[in-house]
């Protein structure tokens, strides 16, 4: 499979302007097949605009995008045949029941046989835990139940791509957990592209992440790469004993760019910035231990949690481009 067919979503300089305000600025996005792709950004970053453009609900001002190789806008009906979508604040016909809503949704994808369609509806209701509320009108549904119905209607058609816009934003912790569990179950069958500003959720389920800020893509990488940091490689070394003599030796290495020292509870903590990961992995610990007066309590490559990485990228002056 070449790289183009391995991409489910691909955009090229996608731009959207609303009444003179650029909501999206030249977005170049690549979403690999079978990924759970977290689309991060603060409120107003342009996440929902991007999703609407991908689905043909809004028209780009300039640039282009492809989903399954189909041009957004021109082939949007074909795209939507293979996509399931849950909006940020989904609205359904209140007089319908959950089962009627799914039957109506299924009617856009399947023409029969009726018994098989009903079986699919029942299976979907079961998947999201709404089987016992299937025949109640939606006007009595809680926020969590609506969100579960939203996931149900988004995957009734066995979509190759599920797009979820802030699927857990309005939910309590239990509701969030349920939604994430459903997403993890679905990942076996489909690509999931979801926007969120809840970083814990992304760290838990995503394998690839893009960060959008003020309409611009500021980072796009596998989550492990993003968590490794965007300010260069840093090793953390916690030492006991007099480390001053060996500090000069380490700092003199050509692959060491910075060496900061902290004192923590009588121990010494070094933050060693390196330019050559292989040299650091091979030599750094050996150099430190070459001084018999020093013992190493901890040695690890520094990892950011996603919140740190996100804030660093979003608030960083250079946008922390990856």
């Amino acid at each position, binding site marked *: 499979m070449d790289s183009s067919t391995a991409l489910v979503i691909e955009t090229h300089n996608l731009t959207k302007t609303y009444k003179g305000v650029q909501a999206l600025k030249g977005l170049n996005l690549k979403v690999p097949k079978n990924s759970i792709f977290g689309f991060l950004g603060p409120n107003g970053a342009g996440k929902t605009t991007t999703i*609407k453009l991908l689905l*043909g609900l809004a028209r780009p001002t300039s640039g282009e995008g492809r989903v399954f190789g189909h041009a957004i806008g021109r082939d949007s009906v074909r795209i939507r045949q293979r996509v399931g979508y849950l909006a940020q604040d*989904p609205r359904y016909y209140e007089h319908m029941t959950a089962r009627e809503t799914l039957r109506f949704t299924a009617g856009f994808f399947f*023409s029969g*046989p009726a018994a098989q369609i009903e079986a*699919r509806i029942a299976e979907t209701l079961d998947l999201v835990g709404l089987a016992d509320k299937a025949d109640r009108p939606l006007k009595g549904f809680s926020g969590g139940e609506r969100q579960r119905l939203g996931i149900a209607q988004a995957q009734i058609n066995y979509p190759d791509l599920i797009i979820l816009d802030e699927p857990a934003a309005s939910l309590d912790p239990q509701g969030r957990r349920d939604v994430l569990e459903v997403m993890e179950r679905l990942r076996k069958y489909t690509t999931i592209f979801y926007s969120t500003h809840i970083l814990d959720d992304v760290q838990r389920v995503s394998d690839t992440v893009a960060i959008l800020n003020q309409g611009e893509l500021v980072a796009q990488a596998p989550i492990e790469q993003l968590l490794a940091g965007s300010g260069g490689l840093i090793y953390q070394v916690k030492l006991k004993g007099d480390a001053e003599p060996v500090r000069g030796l380490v700092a003199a290495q050509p692959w060491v760019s910075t060496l900061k020292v902290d004192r923590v509870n009588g121990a010494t903590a070094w933050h060693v910035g390196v330019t050559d990961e292989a040299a650091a992995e091979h030599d750094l610990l050996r150099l430190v231990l070459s001084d018999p007066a020093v013992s190493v309590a901890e040695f690890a490559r520094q990892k950011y949690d996603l919140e740190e990485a996100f804030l660093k990228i979003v608030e960083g002056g250079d946008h922390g481009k990856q």
Partner: protein
Amino acid sequence: MASNSSLQAVPERGWLQGFGNLTRKENRRWWRTGQWLWQTLIWLALVNGMLALVIIVAPQAEAAEAQRRTGEVSAVEGLPDQPPLDQTGLMIYFTFSGLAIAVGVVILGQEAVILERQTGTAAWVLSKPVSRSAFLLSKLAANALGILVTMVLAQGAVAYGLLYFATGTAYPVGGFLGGMALVYLTLLFYLALTLMLGTLVNSRGAVIGLPLLLIFGYQLFLGLAPWLMAVMPWALTMTMSEAQPAMALTLAQGQPVTDWLPAIATALWTVVFVGVAVWRFEREDF
């Protein structure tokens, strides 16, 4: 689609993709809820109720009053200058259909598009494999059917029966159906206008207000520009004077209509409104 082979996919229908499913949903709203019954009863009370009042109740009351005053048998016989009762009834039926039922159509039509745009259900539906033209045309088709049955055919049949039993006049069925067709054309004009406005503006007041202005302000418009009579739907159902009877009235009485231009113009306007609505809706950002 990560397909289940036992399910048959909906075939591609291009610009009408999703039309069947959407129309079924709209038809269910008409026929599987009480809407058809309510609409039938409301217009029965307003249009045929008024007709019954004019051709049954009022003459009896006048006759009773005349008998009380003069001891004569019939008030109607005593009022030779008035038009025959059957003609008055016919005029009442067509005028009320063109006024009151048109107002009902405007209210139904404004709910069809702008309400769905504002509540967000349109955005949800359009996130499915549905063409925007199918979304709009399904509204038009289902409402056009509901209006035809509950507001035109049902009311026309009752009006015909009332006129026959109360006045003894059996109008030619073909001509009466022709008159009902002109009522229907008038109602389609207002439905299409309201749908179009629902795609153009965000204010429900504007969507309702402009058609109501056309319905009730015709005398004002005709005072400013009399030529509008030839290109607007008013002449179809409204009798302006004895010399200018409504086209529907003329047809229902079995007389020939000499000038079809208002009907042709109304039909063209309707097509234009639908075209503009589809064009605008295709360009809407949700």
